[in-house]
């Protein structure tokens, strides 16, 4: 293998843009040749081929594992032969799910949706790569390099001193450094096996609080498998808004899912990439970016965002625990009292699911609902406006999960949701480790008993 000719430098050929050919040989010496729906990069020494149908190729590689792939660069038309050796087939897990998602994109791109069904990801070791002689086109104009963009983003993220700032800085870096127009960050609710949007950019509404269950769409699969999922063609079955809708129509999840906050997102994205954000082996969040351009996110972009998220996860973790340190900053001068003459804001809360309504309009449910209700109760009964995160964390009324409570992320979600609703009620920072409830109208608290309609 020539030192310059490695799979890492040829990943462009492994995007499924131009179909590759595969030659195998039967035990009696008869050659067989087919088109390969998908040839996928696994690592510098391995590729995966999609196994969809039982056919001669399948029979051959099980009997004689040596095969040759002829693949093409989709930009320059340069050709390469890969000598490969079949190792094993994976029928579940991250690699299988990545291939399944990619294949869905290729299938709909080639008019094969409904025909392609992935049975397995066949893993092959690459024994040799040969450049096939012949004419080539000049390589396309190089886009802005990703490493400087990554470095600037990493620098900016590592300077953040709060989760809130981290989330905003991430969005800004994706926009400015990577030119990404549509993005969302979803925090993981491990106990509930779902993700909730905490921030987004590019959409008409932020969707803060909207939920996606693990396993649904590109985002949900990335969460469940803890693996990046990337599709560079439109793939209807992975458009998560559609997937969610279908699941909701299925009924079973409808009761558990937050459907009242509409999901933002492109209706039919042409490219999608979801990257899990991990701290150790714990899923913190999923970063999702999408585009209306075909082939917008390539392997290198996936690498860059995976690297960025590798810093993001531990930073989220660290900033959430730091956020609990209360520096005892004295309370700022009291807020102007709410306008007593204004009609009170009716806050109705349902204990069963923590759902909370402002003037009969749905706001939020679950832990975030319980948090707001508790703060409002203390405000009403004790006249308090400021709360330390440390005391909140110990307050059983908040119903925080015992481990990984994500209190800070939930407070950010709550404050953004209140902002989206332009409610006469806000949550803002009040010094390190403290938050403040800001009301511009008096409130009247109503504990609902029956499930809200």
């Amino acid at each position, binding site marked *: 293998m020539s030192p310059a000719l490695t799979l890492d430098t040829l990943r462009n050929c492994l995007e499924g843009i131009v179909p590759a*050919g*595969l*030659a*195998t*040989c039967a*035990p009696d*010496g*008869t*050659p*067989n*040749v*087919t*088109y390969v*729906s998908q040839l996928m990069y696994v690592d510098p020494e391995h590729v995966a081929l999609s196994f*969809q*149908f*039982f*056919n*001669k*190729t399948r029979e051959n590689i099980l009997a*004689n594992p*040596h*095969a*040759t792939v*002829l693949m*093409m660069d*989709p930009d*320059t*038309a340069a*050709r390469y*032969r890969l*000598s490969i050796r079949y190792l094993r087939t994976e029928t579940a897990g991250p690699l299988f799910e990545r291939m399944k998602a990619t294949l869905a994109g290729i299938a709909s791109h*080639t*008019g*094969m949706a409904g*025909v*392609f069904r992935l049975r397995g990801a066949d893993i092959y070791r690459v024994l040799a790569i040969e450049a*096939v*002689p*012949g*004419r*080539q*086109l000049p390589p396309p104009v190089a886009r802005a390099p990703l490493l400087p963009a990554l470095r600037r983003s990493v620098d900016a993220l590592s300077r953040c001193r709060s989760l809130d700032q981290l989330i905003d800085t991430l969005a800004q870096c994706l926009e400015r450094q990577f030119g990404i127009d549509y993005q969302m960050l979803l925090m993981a609710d491990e106990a509930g096996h779902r993700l909730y949007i905490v921030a987004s950019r590019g959409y008409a509404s932020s969707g803060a609080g909207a939920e996606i269950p693990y396993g649904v769409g590109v985002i949900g699969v990335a969460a469940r498998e803890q693996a990046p999922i990337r599709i560079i063609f439109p793939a209807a079955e992975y458009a998560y808004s559609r997937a969610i809708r279908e699941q909701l129509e299925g009924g079973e999840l409808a009761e558990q899912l937050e459907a009242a906050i509409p999901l933002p997102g492109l209706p039919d994205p042409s490219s999608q990439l979801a990257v899990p954000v991990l701290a150790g082996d714990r899923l913190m969040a999923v970063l999702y970016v999408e585009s209306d351009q075909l082939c917008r996110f390539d392997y290198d972009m996936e690498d860059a965002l995976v690297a960025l998220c590798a810093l993001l996860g531990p930073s989220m973790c660290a900033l959430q625990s730091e956020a609990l340190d209360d520096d005892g900053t004295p309370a700022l001068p009291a807020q102007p009292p709410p306008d007593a003459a204004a009609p009170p804001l009716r806050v109705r809360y349902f204990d069963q699911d923590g759902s909370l309504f402002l003037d009969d309009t749905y706001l939020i449910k679950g832990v975030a609902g319980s948090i707001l209700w508790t703060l409002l109760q203390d405000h009403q009964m004790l006249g308090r406006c400021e709360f330390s995160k440390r005391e909140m964390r110990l307050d059983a009324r908040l119903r925080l999960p015992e481990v990984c409570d994500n209190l800070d992320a939930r407070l950010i979600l709550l404050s953004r949701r209140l902002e989206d609703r332009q409610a006469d009620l806000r949550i803002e920072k009040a010094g390190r480790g403290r938050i403040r409830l800001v009301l511009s109208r008096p409130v009247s608290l109503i504990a609902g008993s029956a499930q809200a309609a």
Partner: protein
Amino acid sequence: MTPPPVLTPALADFVTSHLSIHIAASDARGIATLVRGLGCRRDPADRDRLRLLVAGPQAEPVLRCLAANGRIAAVFSEPESHRTVQLKGRDAGPCAPDAADAAFLAPYTDRLVARLATLGTPEPFVRTLLACPVEDLRVIRFTPDEVFGQTPGPQAGQRLSAGSAVP
């Protein structure tokens, strides 16, 4: 009694209708290799035979295998419909291109360019992929003795009996 020819008129019409072609051969160690085909036409001297055009430098490993054992597999795919067949033969061998082969290459490429353009494949890409200086042109001649339907789907890979419709 000689079996009916595999290359029926319908099949011959299909495989010569400006399709995307890959050609494979295998060596004595059981390792198969492949090359892109640049064109296909019926051999005027023997209507049961096909002539496949390849670029010599690209096809070198394939030509070497064919010279040794004559066993060939060639897959023909119609880009718009994905209709695909694979032909196999045991008498394949390289032969020198004649003037008709050389004259045939350019129009064949033009047709495939036009076909792929409807699918959004840029013309320069297709022309580059199929580019071959006349002096590099080689011909592989063979008699198909087996045909398999290979249109994607659960039926892919099934042997087609002589005279059955192209899937």
